[in-house]
């Protein structure tokens, strides 16, 4: 627990710039995706039980306005985790590219934004 508090404090005081924030976002999005997966697998299991319970669970969990906003966070989380994972793999196998890692983070965020913006617009369409 003390390690967690120290890590949180160091996270906001250490000036690691792009690489540090990329790492924090990777961890946060990963843990968030795992929590979503718990809910996702359970709701698909409910679909194996029957139509009525599934339609109720799906409507309750995924179609309300707060759920649509959370859906955008999910889209960002998965797209970011995927893109940043690729950056990690690239730098792991081509360590020489490490000196461009800040630029690579910026390119990666731009690519995430290009996919995320239309996906978020489609997701939030019904709300406005």
């Amino acid at each position, binding site marked *: *627990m003390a*390690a*967690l508090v120290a*890590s949180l404090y160091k996270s906001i005081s250490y000036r690691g710039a792009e690489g540090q924030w990329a790492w924090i976002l990777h*961890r946060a999005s*990963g*843990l968030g*995706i*795992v929590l979503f*997966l*718990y809910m996702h*697998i*359970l709701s*698909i*299991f409910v*679909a*194996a*039980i*029957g*139509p009525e319970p*599934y*339609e109720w669970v*799906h409507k309750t969990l*995924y*179609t309300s306005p707060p759920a649509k906003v959370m*859906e955008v966070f999910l*889209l960002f989380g*998965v*797209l970011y985790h*995927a893109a940043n*994972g*690729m950056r*990690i*793999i690239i*730098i*792991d196998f081509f*360590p020489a590219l490490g000196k461009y890692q800040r630029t690579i983070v910026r390119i990666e965020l731009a690519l995430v934004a290009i*996919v995320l913006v*239309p*996906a978020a617009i*489609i*997701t939030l369409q*019904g709300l406005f």
Partner: protein
Amino acid sequence: MAVTSSSRPVQGKLRYGAPNHEHKIWLFMRLSGLVMFVTVVFHLLYMHMFVRVENITFDNIAERWSGPAGVFWRLFDASLLFIGMAHGMNGVRFSINDYVHNRFLNFLLTAAVYGIGLLLILLGSLAIILGAGGVGRLFESVMG
């Protein structure tokens, strides 16, 4: 405290005397990540931008899982379930090892994460094998 790391091993071995299986786990995280870069991103964009969450119904799931193409989609969904949960459970283990240094608490949390993960893999597999409404039908036939 066993040393685990999500970081790149140096010259084929992890630093600080980590056991060699951590090198295999490091490689697994990269390979599963590469596979899921294709499968999960496709699943996410297809479901959220093309099908749309509002249109996912019981009939929609039953239709996707039926017929010869249904075999493909069940295998595809099974790959998402198994690879995704294995990658996710191991990622949570990295986090637990980074923050929880109390041996007993570390063991307890890791056991909980693996227990929940295995249970969900079991439930998800049942859903994929038995199909939409399949668990309900099995329950009814067993109960008479």
